[in-house]
């Protein structure tokens, strides 16, 4: 039998391949197989509609090496999976997910298991086909029409002419004694084995057609096209919405962007003018900007800057309730009787703390918030120099809210929740995140700033507030997360932390000095 070859005349008479006997009963086949084997034939085979158990023993068929191949396939799958997972998720694309380590072996097991099974199964499937030398569409035994029943209800025993004891006569005699239904000589499949021309042409056409998409992709990857790309899928590229500066047919003025309605205040607009929310005084800013003075030079040209700022007008000052309150509680003689907020004022003659002892403050710590070493003169300029990314702004120099133990506690609480993760509980820039990042040593991590570095210590409170609000470098902005009160409280706490590193015995309340000396 042949599937797809037209019958053509063979060039030579078909060669004999062996003898085949047909049986209708399983046990006849088994008996015959045993006999044939006992007669010394080894190149034999049986063809049955179902696996006849015992035939392998009767014919002397050796067990297959398939299990061994499958084990190799499975191990290959396991190795592939684990290597792939490790390389992809640990080496090439490490990405922190739900706090799990990069090499999360328990999570790697399911895929490793699946690929082990997949590789083993593919090996089994392909291995068994390959060991059986399939597909094989031309087989000498198929030439007999009787053989069609080998897959139905008949059993066949075949003795190959290649067997060294093969002799057609004697084989046929031997088989005759085994109750066969029939005995036939098997002839070579004489149909030509070359592929017919139409089939060849079809294959060729399919192959050429297969090249078309590949070459299209190649052209698109390597060429330029002035036209926009095809939108097979829109991917939200075209949305029913207006972008800025576009025309609208809905409104009489034809503008898609709508101006602010007269007499309304947009969300956030009020706060745009209040140093309590900003950390700097915007009125100063506008004045400075109109005069075209660059504050960055203020360190080098203190006199000029001083002039500018001292001359700054106080009109247009927005109401600052929190601040007013704090002013009311400040001892009038300590602070210069200036209007709040206090902008960076180089006019101050000496490096004196802006906020000095506040006798009525609840705890002694609160009274000494500002480290005395902070030179009020160059708060803006000096701190800007090393960090050019931060704009020079007229930062507030004094915390515009009431400073008491409650504020300090609030600041401590919020600092430890939001800041300590990176900056560390002590503000040294050694939080858990920073330490973990150091362990990972990925190279692109920027260490969090220490609160005790000179640069930070020299910053005005307003600048610290500004940094918390807007974020800086890798640090995210916390303006949306923390209320202004909480942010100022954090600033307060940071000041306290800084002070704590530079304290001397005088800072300790008198009644506790004794215990300190004892080394407690």
């Amino acid at each position: 039998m042949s599937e797809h070859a037209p019958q053509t005349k063979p060039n030579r008479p078909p060669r004999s391949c062996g003898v085949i006997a047909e049986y209708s009963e399983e046990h006849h086949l088994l008996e015959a197989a045993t006999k044939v084997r006992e007669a010394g034939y080894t190149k034999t085979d049986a063809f049955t509609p179902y696996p006849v158990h015992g035939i392998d023993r009767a014919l002397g068929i050796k067990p297959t090496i398939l299990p061994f191949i499958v084990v190799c396939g499975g191990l290959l799958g396991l190795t592939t999976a684990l290597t792939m997972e490790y390389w992809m998720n640990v080496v090439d694309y490490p990405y922190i997910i739900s706090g799990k380590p990069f090499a999360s072996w328990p999570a790697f097991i399911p895929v490793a298991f699946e690929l082990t099974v997949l590789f083993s199964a593919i090996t089994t499937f392909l291995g068994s086909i390959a060991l059986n030398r399939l597909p094989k569409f031309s087989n000498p035994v198929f030439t007999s029409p009787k053989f069609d029943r080998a897959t139905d209800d008949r059993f066949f025993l075949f003795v190959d002419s290649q067997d060294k004891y093969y002799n057609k006569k004697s084989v046929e005699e031997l088989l005759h004694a085994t109750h066969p239904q029939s005995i036939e000589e098997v002839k070579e499949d004489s149909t030509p084995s070359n592929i017919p021309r139409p089939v060849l042409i079809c294959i060729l056409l399919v192959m050429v057609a297969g090249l078309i998409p590949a070459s299209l992709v190649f052209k698109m990857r390597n060429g330029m096209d002035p036209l926009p790309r095809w939108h097979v899928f829109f991917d939200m590229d075209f949305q029913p919405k207006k972008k800025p500066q576009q025309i609208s047919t809905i409104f009489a003025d034809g503008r898609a962007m709508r101006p602010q309605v007269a007499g309304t205040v947009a969300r956030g607009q009020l706060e745009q003018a209040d140093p309590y929310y900003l950390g700097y005084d915007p009125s100063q800013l506008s004045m400075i900007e109109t005069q075209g003075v660059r504050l960055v030079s203020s360190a080098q040209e203190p006199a000029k800057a001083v002039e500018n700022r001292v001359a700054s007008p106080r009109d247009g000052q927005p109401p600052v309730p929190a601040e007013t309150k704090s002013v009311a509680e400040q001892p009038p003689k300590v602070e210069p009787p200036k209007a709040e907020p206090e902008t960076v004022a180089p006019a101050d003659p000496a490096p004196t703390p802006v906020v000095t002892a506040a006798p009525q403050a609840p705890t002694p710590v609160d009274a000494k918030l500002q480290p005395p070493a902070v030179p009020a003169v160059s708060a803006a300029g000096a701190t800007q120099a090393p960090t050019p990314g931060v704009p020079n702004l007229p930062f507030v120099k004094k915390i515009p809210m009431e400073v008491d133990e409650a504020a300090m506690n609030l600041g401590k609480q919020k600092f430890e929740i939001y800041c300590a993760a990176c900056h560390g509980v002590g503000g040294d820039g050694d939080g858990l995140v920073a330490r973990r990042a150091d362990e990972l040593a990925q190279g692109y991590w920027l260490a969090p700033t220490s609160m005790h570095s000179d640069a930070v210590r020299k910053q005005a409170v307003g600048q610290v507030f500004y940094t918390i609000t807007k974020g800086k470098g890798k640090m995210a902005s916390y303006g949306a997360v923390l209320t202004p009160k909480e942010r100022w409280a954090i600033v307060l706490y940071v000041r306290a932390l800084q002070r704590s590193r530079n304290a001397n015995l005088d800072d300790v309340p008198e009644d506790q000095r004794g215990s300190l000396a004892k080394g407690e």
Partner: protein
Amino acid sequence: MATIANTFEIDNTVDIPGRRAPLVTGNQTLGSITNLVCGIAERPQPLIWYICFAIAISFAGMFFSLIAYLLYKGVGIWGNMSPVFWAWPIVNFVFWVGIAHAGTLISAILYLFRQNWRTSINRAAEAMTIFAVVCAGIFPGIHVGRAWLAFWLTPYPSLNLWMWPQFRSPLLWDVFAVGTYASVSLMFWYMGMIPDLATYRDRSKSKFRRLIYGILCLGWSGSSRHWMRYEKAYLILAALATPLVLSVHTVVSFDFAVSQVPGWHTTIFPPYFVAGAIFSGFAMVVTLLVPVRKIYGIQNLITMRHLENMNKIILVTGSLVGLAYATEFFMAWYSYNQFESFAFINRAFGPYWWAYWTMVTCNVISPQLFWFKKLRTSPVLMVIICIFVNVGMWFERFVITVTSLSRDFLPSSWGYFRPTMIDGLMFSGSLGLFLTLFLLFCRFLPIIAMSEVKGVLSIQNHADAHHHGHGSSAH
């Protein structure tokens, strides 16, 4: 042949200890089995086939049209809405994957346990596995939003992304598990079919059929050497498919259980999901095979004993599922974890009480009817019960997915899930696709593993000879 095929009155569900009831009835011979099975594909199909096929393919067509509409419009056409983002698509996915499991169980696990009765039903069950996996695979594929980029799930070296999939994600485990399952099931199914395709080839009258089946069967000759390697390969595939089938629904359960969502995060989930999958799969096999054996007149091959055995497995797995429900409930109470107990009380008495009690009625109570032999040997009743089971198992996935999500940790986002009509149409469309494929399978491929049934017949005849001959020294 006609006289043989019509004598299916023997009750082979009665089993006298020491003497096995026949698994193939009606005095079959090797040839009559071939005739019975090949006749299905060779004879014109009965009218009922055409009616079913017309209905099924129209539903399948609707399914694909709706998928096209989904791609055009986006997932907003479904009822998925905060907080229930995993709604019907995932429910349908888990449902179909579960259905698939019975096929592998029959073909692999029962094979390892030498359960000969599997041979008459394994082919159809395996085919059902493949088709169910096809339906299952479609749902998460179109659920990803931009379905045309679903291939991003595979680890391939991308020139644009420079990214790799995240192997710590259970959803990716799913991709591998379902992918492996589909591939292995397909190989297993095809492997088992090779000898039968050769029978089809050898019986073909037309040259074209002979060519097609000849190519499909790879030129199988039935050589004993081939059989030996083939059987070994089949055994190995069975041994591989057994842990695989367990792992697939286990991984599906991990999708839920590794999270912290109350009602999902419980350790019984893996075995409980597997039991539920087998439960629903067997119910589907029974639902399909009872009409099939009637329509094609193969009651002598798929006998009442086969159906009864399947019903017993449905009873066992149904009870296991019930046990798991009870364990979950007990543990929710025992743990004194208030989230967990809330989740379970909410399931039973919250807004989705109707779904929960449908599930319990269909899954726990209805299979208990199979304790009675009368019920588990009545074709009509067993189909009805099995349909109830499948409804219940769909509701189980609905209850798990929707009730837990609709009451998550953030009470402000609690909500009530409402499906759209498209949700419902798509699910019925997937049923249509499944049936279409199954009907085509009945039409063109051997629905019963002839070579295996012949092997069982040989063993049966052998045992009979042995039994009657008592002292005979055979074997």
